[in-house]
């Protein structure tokens, strides 16, 4: 089912939770709605579900305008952040509940529930109460309950936020697998950029009710449209700093990040002046002919070595491979990989990469 969101706005008094949002989702896509808390992503999800009434704008499922359609008739499956399982009912009763309400015969409802339980790998747990299940299992019951009525759209509100780190990685793969198996158009809300990037076909990054960028994860990570997106994606965060473009190239406190020749040979024309710039920690690489910095701090994270250093007063983080032998106070020679320096204009919009 294709989804089209047209000029959707939700205002609470003067505060616009969602501001003139436009988004289209193709059939079978898995879309992540990503943003910090209070950015309007959950409000958007609840408007899609029909539980929150939009102030203005329209929502289309396929060719049908569903803006005024009540939630039970929208053919959606909704999974809540805290799963919202009915605690006094068994897993089976929870999963059959939407079917029984739709006057499906009991025998058929049970058969479909069992199929669904098999899909989400809950076989053998059908007679338990939700309280006797782990968080991950409860999550899968909630997904089974959402999918059992064969909805056209699956909506998930922060589906992984109540799980511990290891389970989170497993469960997000599980969600992806189920989504692909059922081939259902899915939107999920998350504030975790890694979660969004790892399973989404496309991500919509939101801030203050406005969609900042809507793109495939890799494209968005490499080409953030503005400083907000650049900072929101990536862990550890992108290094942001104020640097000068001068006749010599790109300069920061006497350190030359790009020479004029490098800029010209790459065909990048930037007017002289001070700009906000960003460079990702993994784009800073060891080399022979770069700038020399002193490692203030070295953190071993397992896969990587995270190095903290300063250029002038600006703090930077660089990621290198964990087999590098380096101690605090050691000097090292770094450069910013080609095409990794993102330059923003005064409004924070990305101007150019060099």
């Amino acid at each position, binding site marked *: 089912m294709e989804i089209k969101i047209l000029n959707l706005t939700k205002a609470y008094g003067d505060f616009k939770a969602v501001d003139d949002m436009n988004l289209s989702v193709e059939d079978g896509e898995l879309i992540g709605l990503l943003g910090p808390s209070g950015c309007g992503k959950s409000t958007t999800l609840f408007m899609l*579900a*029909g*539980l929150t009434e939009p102030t203005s704008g329209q929502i289309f499922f396929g060719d049908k305008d569903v803006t005024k359609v009540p*939630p*039970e008739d929208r053919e*959606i*499956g*909704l999974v*809540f*952040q*805290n799963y*919202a399982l*009915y*605690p*006094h009912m068994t897993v089976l009763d929870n999963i059959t*509940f*939407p079917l029984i*309400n*739709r006057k499906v015969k009991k025998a058929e409802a049970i058969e479909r529930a069992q199929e669904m339980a098999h899909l989400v790998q809950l076989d053998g747990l059908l007679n338990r109460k939700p309280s006797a299940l782990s968080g991950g299992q409860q999550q899968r019951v909630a997904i089974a*309950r959402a999918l059992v*009525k064969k909805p056209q759209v699956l909506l998930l509100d922060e589906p992984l936020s109540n799980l511990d780190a290891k389970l989170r990685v497993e469960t997000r793969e599980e969600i992806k697998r189920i989504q692909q198996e059922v081939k259902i158009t899915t939107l999920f809300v998350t504030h975790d950029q890694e979660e969004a990037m790892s399973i989404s076909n496309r991500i919509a990054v939101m801030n203050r009710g406005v969609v900042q960028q809507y793109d495939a994860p890799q494209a968005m990570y490499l080409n953030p449209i503005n400083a907000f997106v650049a900072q929101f994606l990536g862990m550890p965060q992108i290094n942001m700093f104020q640097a000068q473009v001068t006749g010599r190239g790109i300069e920061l406190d006497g350190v030359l990040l790009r020479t004029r020749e490098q800029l010209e040979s790459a065909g990048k024309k930037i007017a002289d002046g001070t700009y906000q710039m960003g460079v990702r920690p993994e784009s800073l690489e060891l080399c022979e002919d770069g700038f020399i910095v002193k490692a203030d701090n070295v953190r071993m994270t397992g896969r990587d070595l995270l190095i903290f250093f300063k250029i002038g007063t600006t703090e930077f983080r660089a990621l290198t491979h964990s087999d590098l032998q380096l101690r605090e106070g050691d000097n090292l020679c770094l450069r910013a990989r080609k095409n990794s320096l993102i330059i923003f204009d005064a409004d924070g919009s990305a101007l150019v990469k060099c």
Partner: protein
Amino acid sequence: MKSRKPTAIIAEIVKYVILIAGALFTLLPFVWMVLSSLKSGSEIVAIPPTIIPTHFMFSNYAEAWAAAPFPRYFLNTVFVATVTTVGVLLTSILAAFAFARLDFPGKKIVFSLFMATLMIPGEMLLITNFVTVTKLKWVDTYKAMIVPWLANVFYTYLLSQFFSSVPEALYLAAKVDKCSDLKFLFKIMVPMNKNAITTVAILSFIGSWNSFLWPLLVTNSTNMRVLSHGLVRFQSEAGAQYQLIMAASCILVVPIVIIYLFLRKYILEGMAYTGVKG
């Protein structure tokens, strides 16, 4: 094993002494009632009083049972208490749900008015209710004993507090699952709060079972009287026959004790949640 500080042990002892004293204090009248019901008429007024009856007069029970039409009283009481309880549960559950979950104009004002009525003493209501019942010509009917007690502000308030604590997401999930408000209430809200509802049911049933003044006011004929009125039978100008009153009292509390034993688990849990005293 963990070694415990002497102060902790003393605190524990003091705690249990107080608890035992409290338990004895609560139980004593009950035990006294049972023992007295087995004494003879002369022994019960004897000074100094005996604790254990010298002769166990089980005949008191037969005599008490025969002294008044207890089977009829019993039926009346069971009927009135059951209908009142079912009715008050229904109205309280519906009203509590409305206050807890639904949005309607004037909700806050209506709720405040509801709560304000809690401040009105029951005796005052007795008079106005009596006038109403008389005007409706309901005197000496079951209606008179039941209808005035079919709504209860306190139970409504109590249940609405419980209903409010059920997460909103469950309501929304049920909505998406094509569940109507009424269905949500009885399929999800009520089973989820069965302890609180059982507590309300028990409180209502006991209240109705023990009520004396109101049924006495609105009934005239022996056929409409309830169990508690039977106790008055043993008082005459010549004095009261306490051994028979006690025997009748024992008969009166037995059903309540049995109900309690069956529902003990729910009541205790319900009380623990609410902090209501029974």
